[in-house]
């Protein structure tokens, strides 16, 4: 297997998926201990892992997995009950497999310890079930391997040996299909076998011997006495249902996990990113083309330009979908986290998830993982009470943590809700005062007080458990979310629970914006923030010199003159416009000189040298090749407020 690094890499990826599937199966199993389908699923994955692990030289992994497989085999046969303890041990064993898979030799002691625990749990669990007495049955098995079986690494001798383990057997090889020597291809398999087996094992186990090749081969298993095998059967009878489909077994398993069916291709994420960049530049080039075409009298040019516009739009939409991943992939890893936390804290926790099918850009998902882990840990560690405390408070003993995702406009909203004790305002205030974040007895609104927990270095936990202290504070959570152009909201009722909601844009690469002109510069306002546009009448403009707000359907909306904020030094246009934007909690009007139109743009990050400029979240290249800056609404409003405060002070 030297020089086969690529194959090994592929194995690693597949093994990681298998481990994922095993983990999910185990977690489901801990809730529904009797579910046969789940037991089978876990067993099958373990079996595949062992088999292909050995094939690619991961011997330690294979032999370790073998023991878990054996244990699960017993569960499958009903000899052993899948007790919560057993599931926990196998979960831990699964982590060890991950280490072994990583290439590290792994700690032998850990492995031994796990196996010892496994043995004990199996012994305990088997006491409660007891093996079912089974009579030996006589089976007749006829099988023919596909001609290319040997080339694909299948060893008939190993199959026969495995069958011998099931019971006494008599093997007869049928060599009638072997061609004369000059027509014989040395590495093809011409032999079929007839095996008579005396065994107390069920039929499924015999089928399992052929697990890896069952889709390609011809196999017939007959129980003696039920029906005599007709002589014609020696010419081999097809396996019912799957008629020698060319799909290898592992693919088959994969498509099972994708209920939608269809084939899938694994592509490195960087290639997708490259493609995205190209598409982005294509969109820019296309809009330049359409500008030229619009100015040209040539009808052919216009037709071509329109075609290209349509194509590049479709291409971009397809591209966006390619990068979308259901948020369920992110949620699923929390089940393990909650399982472990419940064990460590002694709390009884139920995690419910909603909206797993909600699709979000891959990058967003990756970057959200850590903050979400932190938030869920916080909910469980600080929010949920112990069962005793919950009983005293008159709540059900099992605490609820809910993870939900849903689309809202161009954003996805992810909420983490718990029904714990809520945030203790008194403690937040005391802590903030102790740390000098606020002056003692400062007047704060409830929201302001809650926002304090996002300050760097803030923690209300009085005792530090091993759950906290991963170096990720709430301030990091907030920063990460803001870096994704998202926002974070927190509501909490004492004794009832807390809810954290993250609003994140669907994608980081492309933004729907409103292109406006202020002075000589053009700017993009994210369309997701825009509520409406209206004209600022001259008289209103004159009148509102002293007070910067307009009345909009009986509510007051303060506004900022971008011309003044950006110090353009130009005269205002005669007909200025107000773009009303929402910053989540409030509405603010932005006075611009002209609204050019909506504009879908590829976001380019600002360079390091402009990191300190908070008013802009990025830049984009317009159709004519010029650069327009994208406004960062929350920061812009903040800057405006500061500027006004300074003016007030000066005046």
């Amino acid at each position, binding site marked *: 297997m030297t020089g086969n690094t690529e194959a090994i890499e592929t194995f690693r990826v597949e093994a990681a998926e298998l481990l994922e599937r095993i983990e999910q199966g185990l977690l489901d199993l801990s809730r529904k201990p009797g579910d046969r389908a789940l037991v089978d699923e876990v067993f099958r994955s373990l079996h595949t892992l062992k088999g292909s692990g050995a094939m690619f030289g991961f011997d330690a992994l294979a032999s370790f997995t073998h023991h878990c497989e054996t244990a699960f085999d017993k569960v499958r046969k009903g000899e052993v009950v899948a007790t919560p303890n057993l599931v926990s041990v196998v979960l831990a064993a699964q982590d060890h497999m991950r280490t072994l898979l990583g290439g590290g030799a792994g700690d032998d002691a850990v492995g031994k310890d796990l196996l010892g625990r496994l043995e004990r749990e199996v012994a305990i669990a088997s006491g409660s079930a007891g093996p079912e007495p089974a009579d030996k049955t006589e089976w007749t098995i006829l099988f023919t391997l596909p001609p290319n079986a040997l080339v694909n690494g299948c060893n008939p001798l190993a199959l026969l040996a495995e069958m011998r383990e099931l019971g006494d057997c008599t093997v007869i090889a049928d060599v009638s299909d072997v061609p004369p020597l000059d027509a014989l291809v040395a590495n093809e398999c011409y032999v079929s076998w007839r095996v008579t087996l005396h065994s107390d094992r069920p039929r499924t186990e015999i089928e399992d011997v052929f697990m890896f090749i069952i889709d390609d081969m011809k196999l017939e298993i007959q129980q003696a006495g039920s029906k005599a095998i007709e002589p014609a059967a020696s010419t081999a009878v097809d396996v019912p249902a799957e008629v020698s489909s060319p799909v290898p077994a592992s693919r088959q398993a994969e498509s099972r996990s994708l209920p939608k069916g269809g084939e899938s291709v694994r592509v490195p994420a960087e290639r997708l990113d490259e493609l995205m960049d190209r598409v982005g*530049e294509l969109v*820019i080039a296309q809009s330049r083309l359409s500008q030229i075409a619009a100015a040209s009298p040539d009808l052919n040019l216009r037709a071509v330009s329109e075609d290209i516009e349509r194509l590049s739009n479709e291409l971009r939409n397809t591209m966006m979908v390619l990068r979308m991943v259901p948020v369920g992939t992110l949620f699923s890893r929390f089940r393990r986290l909650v399982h472990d936390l419940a064990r460590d804290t002694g709390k009884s926790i139920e995690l419910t998830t909603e909206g797993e099918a909600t699709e979000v850009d891959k990058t967003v998902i990756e970057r959200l993982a850590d903050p979400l882990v932190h938030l869920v840990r916080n909910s469980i560690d600080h929010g949920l009470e112990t069962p005793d405390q919950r009983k005293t408070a008159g709540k059900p003993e099992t605490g609820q943590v809910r993870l939900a995702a849903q689309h809202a406009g161009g954003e996805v909203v992810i909420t983490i809700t718990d029904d714990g004790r809520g945030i203790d305002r008194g403690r937040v205030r005391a802590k903030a005062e102790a740390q000098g974040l606020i002056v003692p007895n400062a007047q704060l609104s409830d929201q302001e007080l809650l926002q304090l927990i996002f300050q760097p270095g803030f923690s209300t936990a009085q005792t530090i458990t091993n759950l906290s202290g991963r170096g990720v504070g709430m301030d990091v959570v907030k920063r990460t979310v803001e870096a994704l152009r998202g926002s974070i909201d927190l509501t909490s009722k004492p004794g009832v629970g807390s809810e954290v909601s993250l609003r994140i844009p669907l994608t980081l690469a492309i933004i729907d914006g409103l292109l406006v002109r202020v002075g000589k*510069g053009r700017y993009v306002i994210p369309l997701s923030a825009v509520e409406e546009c209206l004209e600022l009448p001259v008289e209103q403009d004159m009148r509102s010199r002293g007070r910067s707000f307009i009345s909009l359907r009986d509510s007051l909306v303060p506004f900022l003159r971008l011309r003044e*904020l*950006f*110090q*353009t030094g130009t005269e205002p246009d005669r007909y200025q416009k107000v773009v009303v934007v929402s910053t989540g909690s409030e509405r603010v009007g932005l006075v611009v000189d002209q609204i050019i139109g909506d504009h879908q743009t590829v976001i*380019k*990050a*600002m*360079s*390091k*040298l*402009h*990191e*300190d*400029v*908070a*008013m*802009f979240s990025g*830049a*984009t*290249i317009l159709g*004519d*090749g*010029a*650069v*327009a*800056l994208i406004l960062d609404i929350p920061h812009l409003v903040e*800057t405006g407020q500061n500027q006004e405060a300074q003016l007030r002070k000066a005046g």
Partner: protein
Amino acid sequence: MSDELEVLTFDLHGETLALEASIVREIMDMTAITVVPGASALVGGVINFRGKVIPLANLHLAFGMEVGPTTIDSRIVVIELELDGTFTFIGLRTDKVNEVTTLDLTKKEPPPSIGMRWRPEYVKCLVKRGGEFVVLPDLHSIFAVGSHTTGGTLKAVA
């Protein structure tokens, strides 16, 4: 370090400055500059460089010079510089680009402690060439994040 250094020389308000040729990526004609409100005057704008948005710096301001009007000789020199571990493209506004040449480093001198109105940390060294001095600016200290607190008005608008 060898005694010779290949550089690109350019004019800035009557002075001759030089950049290591190895960091120069492209010499562009003046293009549309987008002013970034709120940014320091030294890097007060951004430009489109091959589909990327890169900052445009006015070295004039680092050396206390006035930014002259755009002339037929004005060029943007695009360099690639490592800042805090990441390679960043930066456009430098120049009054005129001269030539790629070799400087004899045996004739270099450290920036004098007096007799110079420039911030000494911005000058790597002076190299005598002919009867003139060529200034090698220390781009890393000029663009060190947070150092350019020159502030001032945004006069550098093209």
